[in-house]
């Protein structure tokens, strides 16, 4: 009984993706912070900038983009692209920039904590 209620409520809570969810958000926000990008561009850039280590599956990327847009961190608009036709470009909103800073801070805290643990353990 209880679990069903949970699952009903759950609908409004974004589902966790393959990557740690916060991390994926951070990667996307950071990637488009410099310039607006479309979904394909974002996935290529994440792959390229991480030296082919990180690859974001489409099944995670697009839902994440839609969620971020839904939350108002990013804004989408259709315009001509380098791919030869119109593409949906995502831009960071002002609220998104703040969110990015928060995400960066928490990432730094997390990674330094992990680092600390590894060094001292």
């Amino acid at each position, binding site marked *: 009984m209880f679990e*069903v209620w949970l699952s009903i409520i759950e*609908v409004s809570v974004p589902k966790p993706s393959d990557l740690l969810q916060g991390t994926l958000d951070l990667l996307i926000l950071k990637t488009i912070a410099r310039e607006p990008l479309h979904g394909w561009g974002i996935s290529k850039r994440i792959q390229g900038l991480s030296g082919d280590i990180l690859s974001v599956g489409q099944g995670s990327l*697009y*839902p994440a983009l839609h969620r971020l847009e839904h939350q108002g961190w990013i804004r989408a608009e259709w315009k001509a692209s380098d791919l030869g036709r119109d593409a949906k470009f995502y831009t960071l909103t002002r609220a998104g920039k703040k969110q990015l800073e928060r995400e960066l801070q928490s990432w730094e805290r997390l990674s330094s904590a992990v680092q600390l643990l590894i060094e001292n353990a």
Partner: protein
Amino acid sequence: MRFVSVLGHRLRSLLRRSHAELELQRELDLHLDQLTRQHVAEGMNERAAREAARREFGPVEWTKEQCRDMRRVNVVDDLVKDLAYAVRLLRKSPGFTLTAVCSLALGIGANTAIFSIVNAFLLRSLPFDHPERIVAMFERSVVGAEQQMAVAPGNFLDWQASSTTFETISAYSTRTATLSGDTPGFEPQRIVICGCSGNLFATLGVSPVVGRPFRSEEDRFGAPRTVVISYDLWQRQYSGATDVIGKSIRLSEQDYEVIGVMPRSVMFPNRIVEAWVPILTGMPPATQLRHDLHFLGVIGRVRDDVPIERARAEIDGISARYKNAHPNESTGKGAHVIPLHDFLVSGVRTPLVVLLAAVSCVLLIACVNIANLMLTRAAVRAREIGIRTALGASRGRIVRQLIAESLLLGLAGGAAGAALAVWIAKVLVAQAPGADAILPAGTVPVDGTVFLFAFAIALGTGVAVGLFPAIRGSRLEVTTDLKDANRSATAGRAHGRFRNSLVAAEVALSLVLLVAAGLLFHSFSRLYEVQPGVRIDHMLTLSAAVPGVRYPRTAQRAALFTDLADRVRALPGVKSAGVVSCAPLIGNCNTLFFYIEGQPYTPGSFFTALERSADPQYFAAAGIPLLRGRTFTMDDGVGYDAQHPRVGKIIISESMAKTHFANEDPIGKRIFFDFEVQRERNEGVPAPRYEVIGVVGDVLPALDRAITPTFYRPLHDVAGNAVSILVHTAVEPESITAAVRNEIHKADPGLVMFQVRSMEDLVGRSTADRRFTMLLFIAFAGLALLLATVGLYGVVSYAVSQRTTELGIRMALGATRADVSRLVVMQGLRPAMIGITIGLVSAVFTSRILRGLLFGVTPVDPLTFALAPPALLAVAALACYLPAVRATRLDPTAALRAE
């Protein structure tokens, strides 16, 4: 800022759904194309590249669904989709839909209708200003520990003069009066008028719709007569013309100047009052000082800053001080207040609460029934649900889909129920006796609150009905369902147990209602076994009132009534006729306090009895037997003079004789009245003695009330302005009505005749409240029984259809038809038996709340408790038998091949 963009985005996803879908498609296509191009660039051919891209991309539809899920408005989105799907499904099974909607409509309709009455009586506040500050005030402990005694004028004026916790205190007292007009053809009519304090308007916090309230100088003895008329009377007699102000109307042959019209919503003290006049105008100063004549209703407006408890303590103190200073007076030892609303609804609260409880049971049964049906459907749909789960629908999503369906049923049932409720409420208000205290005549008490209630329970039942089956339905294991959905022989055991407990619950609730209806029915039949003490058949009763102004003296009125009775006796078809001051079984007789001569006399410790006055022929006409002594003669009471009293004559009832003269002969014993002792002290008029000359049989004050000691006085001693005439006829009582009316008109055209009824009709009216409650309960119990039967039938039929194979095997192995039908019936009866047991135990506890509505039976009436369970069991057996018969008609070979 973020809020605006978020809102815009959400609105777009919601409203421009097809557009958003298209964009999603384009966005993902672009990605796929890029992947393909990449592969082409790596040297694959076009087709292989596209294949590879697809593989790499993964399930496109799934990704899309994930994206859609990210837009939260999906909840609304899905709901619309779910509802559309539910509509399609429900239209596919009209039988189920109709059953469900109809039972919900009945349940919700009945609930809403009863609630509308409860709302009007108990929840809605009175149409006065700050009604919570208004209290009803009483004297307490005048006789014994009585908490609510009518107030004597002396006490009322004391409270008014010395209380500091009240803004205003007003008295009121209703009586009937004859309204007549100068215009020819204006038939004199009997109306109810209310004598009230001049400040009644201030106490209620209302003002007249036209004209002005009373001025304080108008509420004095001997002041010019003024009147405020009711909205109804204003419309009826003056077509709502505003120039009615200043006109004069004639009430009981006296002219009153109309100064105002009461608002339509104000029906104080009840809705039949048609005129208000200042109460002190006609009350002599000597009467105003009396502390022993208890006939006033009193209400007060407590000051804003005073808690009601303090107001109560204050007036209690005022009365107590008076009593201490005058211990000989028959007045209250203190006073009591209760909120006016509580006072007005005190008589209807219990029946209404009980009715609401009963009708909720009916709705509960309807819900359980539908839940059961839904469960059946969920089981049938297990395969469909399994497929949806396999395709990635989450459990919550499935539950929501199933709930959407029941929600739709609930809303449809609610809409039909609300329409039904308006109709039922109309019938209830028209039929409900005693609804006149608060509800304006002819209105339907259905308002916004009531519709909100209907909507809320529709929504509630919709979810409640669907939730359980939905949860159970969605719990099915994907793989077993896909494999198993049509393997009926193994259909879940747990499933069956749950459905059986639902049936047991239904049966238990039905039994509780059945017992309640049985108790009320038994009470009602007991009521008709009661010996009222008067003749009921071939009796016509009517009331007649004289204009008091033209007949100021008792002797004149007595002579007129005697003449009247003589005329009626002379009519053909009349066996005998008698005159009495207040009719048996309905009359509100005076209660008088008296002392017995020869017994130790302590002022203030008196006895009480009902007072009636009657003419010599009354006892024979009414069929009241004379047990000892004699009845009155025409001479008894003639020529009575209060200033020079001689010994009066009275006849007492059997119960009065037994109570006060248990071991002696009552004939020749004398009594005297407390009010005359008080008058002697106040005004010097000597208090007369009354000698018992006869003993007659007891007459009940009302069918459902206990015998009360009563004494009769000769009509010539006390003849008020109105009397009842009882006519014993040889023919149908109603057939002589016109002739009687004609004779009365001949005796004096100014006489008004009212309440012309046969005694049978009168008895029917006096039991109308009980009959009404009983009929409602029988209706509810019948409905509950019907629903429970349908529910049981459904469960057993379903079980039979699920066990076709098993039954086929049993028959193939040699089971006889009797074996099979016994098997099926027993399977259905087991939950019914459990339900009956639970119901019996619950009924023992719940029937206690009916105690106030019962007459002559206890809440654990053995007869009712003995009959209800077998009756229910018989109906249950029938419900199981029909599917069982179907099971026996199975052809074993066909049943086995069906798989």
